[in-house]
């Protein structure tokens, strides 16, 4: 049995690089240091898997050779006038580079999953910039950590432990002890409340409230965690201060905070369900921090206001830099979505939603983004790489996607593969194939090959290169 150490986890944008994988006879036996998501991937990647190339013939999917599947896929793409090439965030940077070459060759529109994730954040960053840093700096120095519209407990389970509140940094210590003592105190008071309500129910006295009041903030030199969200997530349980915002109220709250840190008075009692006193407390915390960071999630990008919410958050960060050091970072979802944006940008100048139909790259989210292309039914074929839009796109978009010829390159048997015309199985990047990925703070990390892929399953990069070659052959034949 071999132990492979320093494995980079191919699940979320944290890209934890301290995993240890136990391998015996080309089988993964166990994985250490991984979170629930990482462990689920390493231990179940083989389940529900398709290893044979499939092509739809007379309405039925038939097993074919790899060459035939690639030939059919290339034909679909070469004959389309405006194909959509979508996915890319769960594959390596090397494969994305080939994908961009293919998009240019077929004159299609290429988009990555940022489009329904942090696309609005990118639009906002292009408007107002982004004061950013690496996660290492935060781990060692940040004394105020704010998660806004983001729930790392569920989506990035090791983020808090590795980089923020629970991490032992060089200049800032984790808040483990404080959290544990609070947990003990709160569960004791809940128990007291239950006993009290039993007693009170017997009589006719009003019930006491369960809310623990009078929680005081820790001393100013200690690290503090603040969570702003519409529901009390498990991340919020850890927080020193939790601010509940009404759905769709983030923009108002952000702008109110901007006013407060400029010492302006608010003429209202509450903003989007948040009492002004709570906002004042938060504003004080922000101004008095020595190194603050806002991590924002899809709570800002997917709700009313979208890019404007993110813009307000970045402007708040900019304003705070008049008083102290403050930074902001999006919580990226897929392990290589940052890499997809980066490769798209160094190849075409634009991070996502790139249209090659004019022969040169064009970028206009709202027109060239995958959702809008599908919504308007513009694309006449599609290639999906390492993604499952049939599960993750709104209904109308999926209806238009499945009507047209569809080529899927994916190691999973996903819902999209189920309705495709050509399915080409690939190797899992980070488990069965090497590659480069970008962590959410734009640090590139190498993904390892831990086990051999099943026979006939090539990495995405190899498959895309073969398709590109065939597309070029078909095009040159047409031209001559």
């Amino acid at each position: 049995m071999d132990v492979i150490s320093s494995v980079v986890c191919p699940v979320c944008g944290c890209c934890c690089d301290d995993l240890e994988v136990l391998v015996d006879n080309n089988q993964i036996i166990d994985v250490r240091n991984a979170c629930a998501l990482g462990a689920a991937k390493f231990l179940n990647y083989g389940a529900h898997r398709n290893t044979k190339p499939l092509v739809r013939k007379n309405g039925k999917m038939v097993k074919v050779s790899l060459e035939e599947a690639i030939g059919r896929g290339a034909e679909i793409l070469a004959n389309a006038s405006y194909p959509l090439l979508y996915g890319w965030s769960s594959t390596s940077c090397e494969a994305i580079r080939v994908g961009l070459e293919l998009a240019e060759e077929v004159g299609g529109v290429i988009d990555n999953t940022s489009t329904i994730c942090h696309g609005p954040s990118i639009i906002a960053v292009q408007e107002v910039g982004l004061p950013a840093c690496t996660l290492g700096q935060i781990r060692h120095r940040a004394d105020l950590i704010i998660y806004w519209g983001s729930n790392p407990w569920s989506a990035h389970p090791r983020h808090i432990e590795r980089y923020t509140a629970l991490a032992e940094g060089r200049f800032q210590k984790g808040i483990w002890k404080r959290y544990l003592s609070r947990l003990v105190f709160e569960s004791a008071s809940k128990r007291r409340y239950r006993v009290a309500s039993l007693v009170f129910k017997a009589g006719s006295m009003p019930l006491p409230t369960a809310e623990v009041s009078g929680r005081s903030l820790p001393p100013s030199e200690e690290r503090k965690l603040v969570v702003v969200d519409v529901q009390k997530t498990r991340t919020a349980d850890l927080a020193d201060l939790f601010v509940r915002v009404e759905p769709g109220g983030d923009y108002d709250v952000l702008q109110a905070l901007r006013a407060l840190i400029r010492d302006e008075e608010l003429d209202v009692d509450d903003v989007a369900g948040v009492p002004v006193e709570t906002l004042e407390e938060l504003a004080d915390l922000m101004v008095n921090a020595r190194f603050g960071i806002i991590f924002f999630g899809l709570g800002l990008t997917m709700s009313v206001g979208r890019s404007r919410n993110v813009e307000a958050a970045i402007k708040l960060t900019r304003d705070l830099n008049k008083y102290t050091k403050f930074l902001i970072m999006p919580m990226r979802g897929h392990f290589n979505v940052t890499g997809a944006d980066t490769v798209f940008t160094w190849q075409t100048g634009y991070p996502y939603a790139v249209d090659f139909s004019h022969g040169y790259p064009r970028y206009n989210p709202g027109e060239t983004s995958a959702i809008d292309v599908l919504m308007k039914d513009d694309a006449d074929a599609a290639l999906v790489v390492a993604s499952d839009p049939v599960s993750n796109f709104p209904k109308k978009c999926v209806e238009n996607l499945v009507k047209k010829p569809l080529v899927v390159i994916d190691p999973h048997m996903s819902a999209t593969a189920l309705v495709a015309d050509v399915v080409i199985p690939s190797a899992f990047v980070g488990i069965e194939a090497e590659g480069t990925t970008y962590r959410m703070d734009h640090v590139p990390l190498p993904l390892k090959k831990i086990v051999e892929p099943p026979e006939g399953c090539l990495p995405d990069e190899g498959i895309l290169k073969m398709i590109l070659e065939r597309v070029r052959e078909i095009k040159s034949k047409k031209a001559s």
Partner: protein
Amino acid sequence: MAKLESLGRPDAGMGFILITGRTINQGCGKEHGKFSGEYLANVAVCEMNPEDMRRLNVKDGMNVRVTTEAGSVIVKAKKSRRIKTPGVIFIPYGPWANAVLKSESEGTGMPLLKGLKANVEPTWEEVSSLEDLLIKTYGSSKKVRLEE
């Protein structure tokens, strides 16, 4: 409550606000496979405030029909003490949530995935498996392959 009203509280039929998002169980279910029982059990659910459940006479684990402008879907109701604001419901990302989400992106490329007006009612109808959901929703347009 001003914000909830501005999002369209007045018409009584759509008295809920639908939020979609990630959960740890959705993330793990996804890795078990989209057609697995884990995925169905963790994603085809609608988390609700206990107060709302009492009002609608919905018990934990009962099926509910969630309807929006874009369509309707049947999911399992799940009591959540984390949703403190009455009128807010939560469905994890996935095909069931997407069956009721709108596609308009208002020029941003991003559809409104959090904060959509919705209606919830108890139902006896069963929750569809992913295959059945695909056939029901897209089956007529072409090709849903069922046999492995």
